[in-house]
């Protein structure tokens, strides 16, 4: 594979250029194979098992299920709560993205790691924190006499809590690298502050905002734990319904139809997203992020920063604090009782390994999953920047599908599909990181793509003209510019893997439960010690997550030269 001929600048899309297509396909081969083997094939297996009963295809079931009023009700609720959650998350988190990208303030790096922590928390644990805050006798009740635990607001607020970091990372990653001088130039030419932002910065950010929005939408569209805990028994998303039909009622045909319905809805969303961002991303001037941030200047920026910090304090730090406080609130006052109990396997052999071991298990799995997600997602993003025409456009959406597919479908699909050579992976430890990378890889693509596309084509061409090999062009030209995005993507893939619960619970290996699985097991047992240990383990999970992110992102976000 040689790509030494410079790619001519996009003139007008006329004339097929075979070379970039070939290169694009070559880069896309591995992500495609990964996606086919670990997503399409398992999901197709479980869906066809559901629709192929008694030796014939039961397509009649599709009409039955879709004709059911309660299913339509569930679909409607799923869509509108996801749309509302996405809008609210963007409204709250975009100023945050700006603050993290453009302002310098003490503790910024730590805080950036902390806002990602919600992402790894088992929803059942975070949900209970929200119950404590929004429910009876909670924070809002004692302050304002308002109980939100039975209203849809509780769901929306919890979704902002979980997805704040998605926006900060997808949008902020690019924002930090936009050259502020472009906006300044517009203002020199007489544009007002707002106009300059609207004409210069916003168009440059649009693809990243759209990316962030679609990610948040998919995450909230397939929301499970939050809905179960805060929505009460009368509210269900498709995800909850698919879980019930698969794992409880065992009505596979209905589950299969619902899975298809979910897929169709997600494909529609992705199509909308694709057409919205089809406007060619302009090559932007990317600069070293270290040079773009400054101390807040003027009352406006100080107010904005104060507002952002206050929203983070209330929305994220407060619920996390509630959980941490519970982990110290032992039977005899505050202390380390629950943490000490974690260290002992005691006579209680629930895990056959001590719960503390699960920390190590989780970190190992997450590290493996991060490597897989970076390779798969990185290659996919590289293929997508090679503008190989319509083929890659579908490919972009394809990689997003796992985010919009129910975890129980993927988990059960793994069990029935990957049970024969050459893909006999049911008892392999690899199954867990593979399942986690399915969720991590799309994120890597979303973070990398706007940055990669923004790398000025002419830089690549110039390097190639000077005789650099493609690998060298990548190393010398692109890597320094995308280094930061790579760090952000890696951190997120790691966090997603650390917290992934849905699919992992079905394929957790016997001797190595992951941390969220261990938390769920402890919560499933009565008694103060079990509950307290679950809280202590969740607190450890938060600390591990924040520490890992700081470690992961540090070398990658160092000043390049």
């Amino acid at each position, binding site marked *: 594979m040689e790509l030494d001929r410079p790619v001519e600048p996009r003139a007008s899309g006329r004339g097929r250029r075979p070379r970039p297509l070939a290169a694009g396909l070559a880069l896309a081969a591995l992500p495609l194979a990964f996606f086919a083997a670990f997503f399409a094939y398992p999901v197709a297996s479980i869906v066809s098992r559901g629709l192929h009963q008694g030796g014939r295809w039961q397509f009649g079931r599709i009409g039955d299920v879709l004709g059911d009023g309660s299913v339509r009700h569930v679909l409607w609720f799923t869509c509108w709560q996801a749309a509302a959650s996405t809008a609210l998350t963007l409204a709250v988190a975009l100023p945050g993205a700006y603050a993290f990208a453009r302002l310098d303030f003490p503790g910024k790096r730590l805080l950036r790691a902390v806002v990602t922590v919600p992402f790894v928390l088992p929803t059942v644990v975070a949900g209970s924190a929200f*119950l404590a805050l929004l*429910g009876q*006798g909670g924070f809002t009740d004692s302050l304002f006499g308002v109980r939100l635990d039975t209203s849809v607001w509780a769901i929306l607020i919890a979704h902002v809590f979980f997805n704040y970091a998605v926006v900060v990372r997808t949008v902020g990653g690019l924002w930090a690298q936009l050259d502020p001088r472009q906006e300044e130039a517009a203002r020199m030419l007489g544009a007002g502050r707002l106009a300059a932002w609207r004409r210069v910065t916003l168009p440059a950010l649009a693809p990243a905002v759209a990316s962030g929005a679609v990610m948040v939408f998919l995450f909230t569209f397939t929301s499970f734990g939050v809905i179960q805990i805060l929505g009460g028994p009368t509210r269900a998303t498709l995800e909850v319904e698919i879980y*019930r039909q698969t794992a409880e009622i065992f009505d596979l045909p209905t589950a299969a139809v619902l899975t298809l319905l979910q*897929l169709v809805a997600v494909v529609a969303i992705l199509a909308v997203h694709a057409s919205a961002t089809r406007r060619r991303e302009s090559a932007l001037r990317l600069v070293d992020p270290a040079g773009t941030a400054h101390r807040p200047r003027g009352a406006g920026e100080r107010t904005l920063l104060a507002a952002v910090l206050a929203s983070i304090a209330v929305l994220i730090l407060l619920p996390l604090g509630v959980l941490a406080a519970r982990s110290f609130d032992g039977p005899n006052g505050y202390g380390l009782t629950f943490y000490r109990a974690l260290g002992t396997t005691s006579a209680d052999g629930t895990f056959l390994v001590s719960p503390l071991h699960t920390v190590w298990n989780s970190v190992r799995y997450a590290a493996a999953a991060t490597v897989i997600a970076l390779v798969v997602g990185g290659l996919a993003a590289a293929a997508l920047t090679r503008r190989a025409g319509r083929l890659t456009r579908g490919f972009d959406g394809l990689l997003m599908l796992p985010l919009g597919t129910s975890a129980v479908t993927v988990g059960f699909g793994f069990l029935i599909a990957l049970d024969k050579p*050459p893909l006999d992976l049911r008892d392999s430890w690899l199954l867990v990181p593979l399942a986690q990378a399915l969720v991590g890889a799309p994120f890597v693509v979303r973070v990398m793509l706007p940055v990669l596309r923004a790398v000025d084509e002419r830089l690549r061409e110039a390097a190639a003209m000077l005789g650099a090999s493609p690998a060298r062009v990548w190393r010398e030209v692109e890597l320094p510019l995308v280094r930061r995005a790579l760090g952000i993507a890696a951190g997120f893939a790691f966090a997603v893997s650390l917290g992934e619960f849905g699919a992992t619970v079905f394929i957790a290996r016997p001797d190595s*439960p992951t941390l969220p699985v261990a938390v769920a097991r402890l919560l499933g047992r009565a*008694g*103060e010690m079990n509950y307290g240990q679950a809280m202590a383990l969740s607190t450890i999970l938060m600390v591990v997550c924040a520490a890992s992110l700081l470690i992961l992102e540090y070398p990658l976000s160092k000043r390049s030269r």
Partner: protein
Amino acid sequence: MGALVLATAGATLLAGCGGSGSGSGSASGTPSKTVTLVSHDSFAASKSVMAQFTKETGYTVKVLRGGDAGAAVNQAILTKDHPRGDVFFGVDNTLLSRALDNGLFDPYTAKGLDQVPSDVQLDAAQHRVTPIDSGDVCVNYDRAYFTSHHLAPPQTFADLVKPQYKNLLVTENVSTSSPGLAFLLGTAATYGDDGWQAYWKKLKANGVQVVDSWEQAYDSTFSGSAAGRKAKGDKPLVVSYASSPPAEVVGVTPQPAQSPVGVATGTCFRQIEFAGVLHGAKNPAGAKAFIDFMLSRTFQQDMPLQMYVDPVVKGAVEPELFTKYGAKVPHPTTIAPDKIAAKRDDWVKSWNSIVL
């Protein structure tokens, strides 16, 4: 979508043309020294007890846990052509028919079955499953609440609809929670196929609250558990287990005279858990040895503090924690597994329309 179909086709091809290496060498003459146990997330046993099994038989046990009881059974059914293990533990009487109808198990008459009362042997004709433990789903009450309100706690299903217990009970959604379903079955057993709906209408009029999971009911909403007290739970009655009171005092120093949680013994439904040799097991001999072991005194007496269930073998001694803090349930309700299987979906649907 076209791309998805393409990718799927590609993957299927890929899987299909994997070198079908005939004779994988696993069928060697030496029997495997590993027994694989497939179970749900609640399976637990002391290390020393598992070590004793290995010492007695030479087999080491590998445990695969996947989800709750329902999810674990359904996975076993889905993978029955290529079972993941040799022995399955954790199918209860509410799921038994589904497992048996799908041909999940091979018959085996366990050693020591003569020490198990016949009323828990629900497959006595064929012995496809062996009863291992039992437990009762009952309404639990917060002792402190009823003492301070000078109110006698309820004892029966009939009590729960009385006005003095208005707005005090939290239960679980029958579609998403196994104790929630068991409580519904208890009312169906008590009031009959036609009577239970009227009972639930009264219960709803009396302000029963429904949440999705046992964790949420017991740890957040119930005022009698330690976690619930901290979470400011406001319901002194909850649908939980007869074994919750002993669980509530584990690790509490000094040990109280009685558990803060009591059991309304007239509101119980009996759950029995079974084990069976998986059809198509690679190591059926090991599976049978483990089922025998599960009926041994060693395992039976270890179970209560591990899984908070009662032994089924006659003469197995319960730990002091259970005898001191637990409740004896003289007459729990039951329903035959085949009837549960036949009626379950209808009952769940009508419950949904009445209560939610």
